[in-house]
């Protein structure tokens, strides 16, 4: 038993922690004429903050958090309905299959389709103009922040819904009946029993949604059309310029941001209930 735990910890250390440390270390080097200079310095980090990447960082944060909040607002009720609502067995299986199928397709191929739908002469604009609702095509539908947000919400919906759905389905129905029986209204049951007990799933959903949103690269590239630059685009351009320390610093910065936001999330979750105790439902 103990051996297994240590093996897992070791594997995790080698596979996850070591690369992050190497990454972090790289961010303290510089490049000169496409060659990495292995002398520790903070130049890269100073440049990072002085070169106007602040704006990019803020935009990335804003978009990632907006996406996550939208996911949560739509995903939680959906997961609740799917797990405890009046859905038949067939309905539930179909919904779960629909949530899984997007994983079979590459993100780029799923995203590029939206260009044809949202573009100036795309499906939406054609229909709107055909119906006489607008005279000119709506240009903010594509190559705008709205389009990027929309693309990311669509892509990250399953990763948000799945863990919440699983956490809610683990809640014993008799707990909900007991709450009802003791006089609780549906809202009280939701806030006092379902939400606290589904916190592990909600936290996982946020991680699975916030992480990819912070590092999103396909959606801003394809649906932002160069107008919506996020950190990932900076990383990519630094990478193609072979400026590895900048890549490292930016990536490390994203990881730091993620940790900060998760820490904040944990503090918020504590107000809803003891997050540690809600994991007890998993142990039964």
């Amino acid at each position, binding site marked *: 038993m103990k051996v297994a735990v240590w093996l897992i910890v070791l594997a995790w250390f080698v596979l996850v922690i070591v690369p992050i440390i190497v990454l972090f270390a790289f961010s303290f080097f510089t490049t000169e004429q496409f060659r990495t200079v292995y002398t520790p310095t903070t130049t890269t980090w100073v440049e990072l903050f002085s070169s106007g990447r602040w704006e990019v960082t803020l935009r990335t944060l804003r978009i990632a958090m907006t996406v996550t909040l939208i996911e949560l607002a739509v995903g939680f009720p959906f997961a609740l309905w799917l797990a405890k609502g009046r859905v038949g067995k067939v309905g539930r299986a179909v919904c779960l299959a629909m949530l899984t199928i997007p994983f079979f397709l590459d993100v780029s191929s799923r995203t590029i389709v939206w260009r044809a739908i949202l573009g100036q002469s795309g499906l939406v604009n054609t229909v709107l103009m055909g119906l006489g609702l607008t005279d000119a095509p709506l240009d903010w539908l594509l190559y705008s922040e709205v389009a990027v947000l929309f693309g990311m919400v669509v892509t990250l919906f399953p990763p948000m819904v799945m863990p919440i759905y699983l956490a809610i389905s683990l809640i014993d129905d008799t707990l909900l009946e007991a709450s009802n*029986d003791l006089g609780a209204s549906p809202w009280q049951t939701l806030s006092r029993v379902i939400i606290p007990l589904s916190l592990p799933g909600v936290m996982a959903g946020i991680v699975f949604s916030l992480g990819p949103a912070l590092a999103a690269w396909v959606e801003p590239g394809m649906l932002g059309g160069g107008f919506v630059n996020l950190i990932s685009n900076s990383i990519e351009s630094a990478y193609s310029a072979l400026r590895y320390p900048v890549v490292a610093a930016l990536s490390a910065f994203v990881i730091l941001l993620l940790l900060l936001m998760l820490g904040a999330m944990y503090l918020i979750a504590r107000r809803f209930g003891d997050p540690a105790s809600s994991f007890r439902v998993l142990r039964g």
Partner: protein
Amino acid sequence: MLEVEDVVHRYGMVTALSHVSLSAGRGEFLTILGSSGSGKTTMLRVISGLEMPTSVKVLRIGGADVANLPAAKRNCTTVFQNYALFPHMSVVENVAYGLRIRKMNAADALREARRALAMVQLEAKADRRISQLSGGEKQRVALARAVVTQPAILLLDEPLGALDEKLRQDMQIELMELQRSLGMTFVYITHSQEEALTMSDRVVLMSHGRIVQSGGPLDLFDRPESRFAAEFMGYENILPARLIGREGTAGIVEFPGGARTRGVVTVEGLKAGDAVCVALRAERIAPATEGATDALKAEVTNRVYRGKYIDIALATDAGPLRLRSWHGSHVESEDIRRIGWNTNDAVIFAAE
């Protein structure tokens, strides 16, 4: 306190309850007894409001019509079979839940909850986690949580089913004492005739969604009115016979072999010539002395040692019978030639 009239409940094609009516008075301990699938749990869920019946004529709790009220608005609480304690709350938070829902302030609710926990001897574990409790302790927490809001009726769904034998017997006594000290109406569901007989003021025996018989524990134990009731209440010997005469509740029957015996008729409307069953408990049969009236000739065919007692199989003029002898009595080794019983112990009811 509780009035239910003519409940019908169907799950699709299956009729779980068919025209069931029952009532319980203030402070009464009513037990609904039945095997699984008898409809007893459905009945409880209909009373609590967790199940809305297909149709019901009258459903009142404490005089208030609750037929269309949701479970949350009914003045009754349920002790669930698997306890249904909230795993993310401590023991005392669980007990205080119903009070907090009713907007009682936190300090008062916790004080009330601790008092309820003291009632079930668990105040020392008020701050424990639910997962740190044993089965019996969880049972007590569930009880405290259900009574703390002082409902008119407490509904208990096989609450002792998951406990071991010894603990079950202790909890039976504790439950009875709790019920008496609170003066609360208890509706108790069980499949165990022993639990029903020990605890109840009145027992309702259910089978296939209908009430088979109801009455005091003694009535059910000694005066079953049908073959099902007799078998469920543990009658070992049920013999077919024909009623040949009756006088009030006393009846005389003739067995197929020609032997005759007397017994108590438990159902109205039986007349001479009707096919009946005679039920006898094995421990109420005893070897008869030579020349005793109503004694039957018997021959021992088998003896089975069962620890506390010995079961003796007999071939008699009335048919095969089982006689139970407490360990250590002289019947154990002696040969048995004739057997007899008290007329009061032979119960006569209609054969199906």
